[in-house]
């Protein structure tokens, strides 16, 4: 649910333009701190995110994003690069507008970065599966708040035609639906992340960051 499907033409230009500028700055920074030897792994996990997003789970094309597990597996900076690539490819098939790529990246990137940081703290006390699930839930909560803020801002910003200004947005309709979907997304993403963590801790624990540092 942390993936924006806002189409082109509904966001105010200052919002989408500034988000794209911010994303480009963050990508340049991420390029300095990520390991270039992992570029193929990043590409493979981006493809995995796209494959996961291709499985609809209900109305409004609801699907998992895997931003949390991918953020944990790659780290915040590399995860951010991956979600940008995924958002751009999706936008080219109309899955979210091209102008929403920056905001999509920020929202999904926040989910991945939060999960990555939270996992580092949680994995010392909890099993990898539980830590990954809780870290993913934390990322979903924060990215959901950002997502909701963006949608509210888009709806509150004066739009053309000018007649829209005289009619305040009916935010209660959006809120009711969005909060329900957000809660559902929180549960679904966390349980799926639990399964990912359970499998990786049994089969390839070296892929999980905390365990790999312990073994080293």
């Amino acid at each position, binding site marked *: 649910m942390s993936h924006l499907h806002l*189409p*082109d*033409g*509904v966001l105010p*230009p200052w919002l989408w333009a500034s988000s794209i500028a911010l994303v480009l700055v963050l990508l340049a920074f*991420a*390029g300095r701190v990520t390991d*270039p*030897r992992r570029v*193929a*792994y*990043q*590409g*493979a*996990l*981006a*493809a*995995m995110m*796209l*494959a996961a*997003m*291709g499985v*609809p789970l209900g*109305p*409004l*094309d609801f699907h998992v994003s*895997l931003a949390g*597990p991918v953020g944990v597996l790659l780290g915040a900076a590399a995860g951010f690069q*991956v979600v940008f*690539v995924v958002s751009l*490819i*999706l*936008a*080219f*098939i*109309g*899955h979210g*507008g*091209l*102008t929403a790529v920056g905001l999509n990246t920020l929202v999904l990137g926040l989910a991945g970065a939060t999960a990555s940081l939270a996992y580092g703290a949680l994995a010392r006390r909890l099993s990898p599966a539980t830590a990954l699930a809780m870290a993913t839930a934390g990322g979903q909560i924060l990215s959901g708040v950002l997502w909701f803020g963006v949608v509210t801002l888009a*709806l509150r910003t004066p*739009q053309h*035609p000018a*007649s*829209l200004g*005289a009619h305040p*947005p009916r935010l209660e309709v*959006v809120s009711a*639906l969005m909060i329900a979907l957000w809660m559902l997304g929180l549960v*679904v993403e966390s*349980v*799926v992340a639990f*399964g*990912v963590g*359970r*499998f*990786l801790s049994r*089969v*390839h624990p070296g*892929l999980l960051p905390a365990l790999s540092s312990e073994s080293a």
Partner: protein
Amino acid sequence: MTSLLGRIDHHASTGRTAWHRASALGKLALAAGIIGVAIFSHSLMLLAVMHAIAWMLVLSSRLPARLALLAAAYPLPFLGLFLISRWDGTAVTLLVLLLRPLTASLVSAWLVGTTPYPDLFAPLSRVLPRQTGDGLFLTYRALFALLARSERLGQSMRLRGGFGGSVRRRLALAGEGMGTLAVHSFDRSQNLYAAMLLRGHSGRICGCRHFAHRSAADLLSLAVAGVVAAAAILLWRSA
């Protein structure tokens, strides 16, 4: 969604229209122009013209109608939500709010339906940070192999009762399935990176250069760009 991506990509690679021969750079510029005019225009008349041009592009590219409609319809669920929240009851508002995103998604469908992804990524990778640009190509390369694998995984899970039981169990098993894909992705990426090094990878995937090769088909892009510019100049201030 990913099957849609595959079918559009197939059409982009096998299509034989003039749009398929036109350079990716010219089409990117044309698409940006039409989407820009559609987003910033306050004129319903101009929006309607841009929408008509978008349909003309899609139809002349011989993109299968079902594919075009599927791609163009993606914004509708969220657009519906936006309309419920913002619609003031007038037909003009409804049309403006509908035409902007639908025009943009149709133009996007035309662009990706006539341009193979590597050609589309090549110019973008030159303006993006190096690792991000490379990520576009490597994601594209990994996607279709991973899709085939995830399909086989889904079939074997179904045959072994993986989709039975409580919702929590099914979701956790789906997560384990994702875990197998992550392990597979890791192993595959190790081999791929080793192969890239053996082939002389210098730290940057440059992509093909024919995205900028000009041909007679580019005159078509230029002609449509002229129509878009003329319409924008003439109709910008109209109702």
